[in-house]
């Protein structure tokens, strides 16, 4: 056999994994892996930008992803630079050091989701609060639909966003039962929040400091029960000589 023929025989087929690697690198596909979470096994998808979605690992998740995002899904290991932060973020309910890919959202939606990500574990905020934080106080409804379509639930903790009247509200990841479950898991008493909502309590004040807070703010929860007074509006709290908490910023 001539040397030219031998050289021609040195080429074979495409090794496994290269076309998949290209699909991930060009963002024609996202990678995915399965993780445990407080509401059962979830599918976390990712690309070079960061985590792109979280969904329950129920039948048809790959099709649901393709319909929503227009890309394929391939089983993959997340980038080594931040992959280890995925289980941490799922448990903590905040992105922390994990990059998130919100490029499928409008700039306003991405801003709202980032504000939602700042809500501390174990606390909740009403839709109207996020709208005010974004300097768009009239946009509470847009905040609601942004939360309903949050592509990265659990890690961007939309379960900490509640109705403006204080009721727990809907939840996109498997329904309101999961929202209740998640809040309980992180130390919130949802039944207590509903009770306050039914009594039209929007904020609570501390009679010793004269500061008023969202009812789940850690500052008011640490107050002596005898020092806590209920208000049906921020206006009522202000009229009684209270000022807003600088941590939970209840407004008014």
């Amino acid at each position: 056999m001539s040397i030219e023929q031998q050289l021609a025989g040195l080429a074979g087929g495409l090794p496994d994994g290269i076309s998949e690697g290209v699909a991930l690198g060009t963002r024609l596909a996202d990678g995915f892996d399965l993780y445990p979470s407080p509401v059962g096994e979830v599918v976390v998808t990712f690309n070079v930008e960061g985590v792109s979605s979280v969904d329950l690992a129920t039948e048809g998740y790959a099709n649901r992803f393709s319909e929503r995002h227009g890309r394929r899904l391939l089983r993959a290991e997340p980038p080594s630079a931040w992959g280890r932060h995925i289980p941490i973020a799922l448990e903590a309910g905040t992105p922390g050091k994990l990059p998130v890919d919100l490029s499928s959202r409008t700039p306003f939606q991405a801003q709202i989701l980032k504000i939602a990500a700042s809500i501390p574990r174990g606390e909740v905020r009403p839709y109207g609060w996020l709208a005010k934080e974004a300097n768009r106080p009239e946009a509470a409804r847009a905040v609601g639909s942004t939360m309903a379509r949050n592509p990265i639930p659990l890690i961007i903790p939309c379960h900490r966003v509640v109705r403006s009247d204080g009721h727990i509200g809907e939840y996109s990841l498997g329904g309101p039962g999961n929202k209740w479950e998640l809040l309980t898991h992180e130390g919130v008493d949802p039944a207590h929040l509903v009770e306050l909502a039914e009594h039209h309590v929007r904020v609570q004040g501390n009679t010793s400091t004269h500061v008023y807070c969202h009812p789940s703010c850690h500052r008011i929860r640490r107050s002596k029960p005898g020092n806590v007074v209920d208000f049906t509006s921020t206006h009522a709290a202000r009229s009684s000589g209270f000022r807003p908490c600088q941590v939970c910023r209840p407004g008014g």
Partner: protein
Amino acid sequence: MMDDLTASLAADLDRAFPALVEQAGPGLYWGLRRLCGDHQEAEDLTQETFIRAYRAMGGFDGERFAELRLSPWLWTIALNLGRNHLRSRSRRPTFVEVGEHGVTDPEVPDSAAWDRRMAGLTKPQRTAVVLRHVVGMGVAEIAEATGRPQGTVKADIHRGLARLKQLMEQES
């Protein structure tokens, strides 16, 4: 005159791109494998070449596609990447076969012997011989990919093959 694949890429890049990887991928990988002598590096360079190509093509208009010669253009990218050893592996998700661990290293007969022989060639000779005879490109395409005159490419192929024969005779 565009070939079918170039025309498909111009019409719908996202839809046609996997076909480009299927068609040009084996030549790129096995050419790079003989040039750098390492499976992992050849795989990285092949992937990175296609990723760069995809990004570049996103900015092409019809005219640019019309004058595009796929194989020399891809090899221009691959050879530049190989020179710079650009790595961005830690930022990229890595594909793994479900239920499999570790990378598979596909082999051809006498792979290690060929790596040894190839190391005995100058870099231009090695590049010219591999592109001509492993990948199967024409002299004009190699000249375009490497930015060297066709006469020089022909001489490199000739001298490279002569050197390989000499090395193989020494082995036996």
